[in-house]
């Protein structure tokens, strides 16, 4: 077992609305990522994927509030730190974040090199500009970006180039954890492939130690990450290796989700897509029992009233359902 790079223990965060109502967006999430490993988070819109990412890097600005739990990066607990302190000491060196709209994150009036200077000087205020440029040029060349890009403005770059530049800028200080929130969902397949290749190179060359990849594109997760977690209504409902999760999902929700994969492979045309009817519960008043019970084909009365803990099984896997693993598998095979 490798060294644990990122550990999240029972993290709970909430949004407070204008009317002072609490929305429990991340509700008791725990997981670990080891050095050199990548973890994917899948789930539908509004299940808390992006909130989890923001919470992990200590981005607690209203309406997002920290409630409880620990976030430990390489042995250092950063939970409950002041956002300003997090920006100065954690962001960029310990943890880097690529937001969903990273392509629009670049200020159009600044050259790319300015962003790099900004990032580096936030941590090393005395560093010389020439040194920073040399460092940036070397890193850009290694990642297949032309050093000339440094003197360009964001508008001169194509979408895929912008995305890769953002990734190169945010990882310039070799962060221990890279959080990528849908980094390729706005790109076409060719640019997407280049972005993924670049992220993989960052991992292989050891510039980033571990990665958390968020997307709802399951075939992509399967190809990029070692492990996959499925999130539903603020909780993790199942966790396992990528292969186990795609070919052998246990939780009814993951089972439905994996049934909706569309790939251009033989046999896809014949299959019935696993659509899950209904909508997720309102997180202002999360149900006491299973959160998926309302939409679950196999739910019983017990499911609605019993609170369900995370149940470990197999080789380091986990799921959250009242029914047993064998029972669920038998139901699926009978369909």
């Amino acid at each position: 077992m490798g060294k644990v790079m990122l550990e999240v223990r029972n993290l709970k965060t909430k949004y407070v609305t204008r009317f002072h109502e609490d929305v429990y967006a991340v509700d008791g999430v725990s997981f670990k990522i080891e050095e050199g490993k990548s973890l994917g988070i899948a789930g539908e819109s509004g299940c808390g994927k992006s909130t989890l990412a923001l919470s992990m890097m200590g981005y607690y600005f209203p309406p997002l509030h920290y409630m409880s739990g620990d976030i430990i990066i390489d042995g250092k607990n950063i939970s409950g730190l002041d956002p300003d302190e997090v920006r100065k000491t954690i962001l960029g060196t310990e943890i880097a974040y690529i937001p969903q709209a990273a392509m629009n994150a670049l200020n159009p009036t600044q050259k790319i090199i300015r962003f790099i200077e900004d990032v580096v000087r936030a941590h090393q205020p005395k560093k010389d500009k020439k040194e920073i440029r040399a460092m940036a040029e070397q890193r850009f060349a290694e990642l297949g970006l032309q050093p000339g890009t440094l003197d360009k403005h964001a508008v001169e770059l194509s979408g895929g180039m912008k995305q890769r530049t953002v990734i190169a800028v945010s990882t310039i200080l070799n962060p221990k954890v890279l959080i990528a929130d849908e980094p390729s969902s706005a790109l076409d397949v060719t640019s997407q492939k280049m972005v993924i290749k670049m992220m993989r190179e960052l991992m292989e060359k050891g510039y980033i130690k571990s990665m958390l990849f968020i997307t709802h594109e399951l075939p992509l997760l399967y190809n990029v990450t070692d492990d996959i977690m499925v999130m539903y209504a603020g909780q993790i409902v199942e966790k396992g290796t990528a292969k186990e999760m795609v070919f052998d999902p246990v939780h009814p929700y993951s089972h439905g989700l994996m049934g909706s994969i569309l790939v251009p492979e033989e046999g896809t045309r014949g299959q019935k897509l696993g659509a899950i009817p209904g909508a997720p519960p309102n997180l202002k008043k999360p149900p006491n029992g299973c959160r998926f019970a309302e939409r679950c084909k196999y739910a019983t009365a017990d499911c609605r009233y019993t609170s369900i803990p995370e149940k470990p099984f197999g080789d380091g896997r986990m799921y959250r359902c009242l029914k047993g693993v064998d029972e669920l598998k038998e139901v699926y095979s009978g369909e």
Partner: protein
Amino acid sequence: MSEMEKARAQTDFSDKPLCLSGRGVTKVFGFGDKKTVAVDHVDFDFHEGEFVSIVGESGSGKTTLSKMLLGLSNQTEGEILFQGKPRDIGTGRKKREYWKGIQAIFQDPFSSFNTFQKVDAVLLDCINMRGGKHLSKQEKTDMMTEACNFVNLKFAELTNKYPFELSGGQMQRLMIARIFLLKPKILLADEPTSMVDACSRATILDMLLNLRDETGMTVIFITHDIGLAYYISDTVYIMEHGKFVEFGKADEVILEPKAAYTKRLISDVPKIHEEWDLSTVDLKQDA
């Protein structure tokens, strides 16, 4: 494979009557040095009841073509034939007449609806457009309820709501309910699932297939997702730089692609049973 799926995989549409076809359709933007040929002399034949996908990357001319098909912009050259006859949309009246035959679902559900119109008004408009103005209130309500049931929405819950009170998936389903009421000959769907997640996507795709089976309309599905196109369509057209580089039955085009562009497009998509080959990617080529 179920019986229905088998039938779907084998249907031959070439002997069905033509619904929409194009000969040498071209669209040029700008002139002189700044000329851009967005759609370059394309020919196509869409038959009745056919589910057609047009696949291409960003900037390949998919949306420009769809605007021409809808009559929202005129072609620079070439001819579009509607039900075998040259299309005439010279005047507003003729255009409205044409739009009774062709309707669209757009990518962004949030900007597809009039913000000031409640959901029942949206649906009522459709009934009136189909010449249902004289119907009694009860009959109209029944029709609207039927349409909502078709897309798994509850009409009683929606009546007093504005479209922005619905979620993205619900809005897109409401859009399908509109199409259900309008029953056009052709439905043009421009990336209707790119802004919704995988679960809602499955629901919407199934609804589109049911709609086609029930009403026998032609569906033109525009997408950049080749996996999705393969799942849903009978015929696939692959578009590159304003031209169709390959077209044919979905099985033939996707499983045995001939054009180099199609091959590249398919190899770039992450798959689950085959290895996704990243070694072919040259990071320097873009720079």
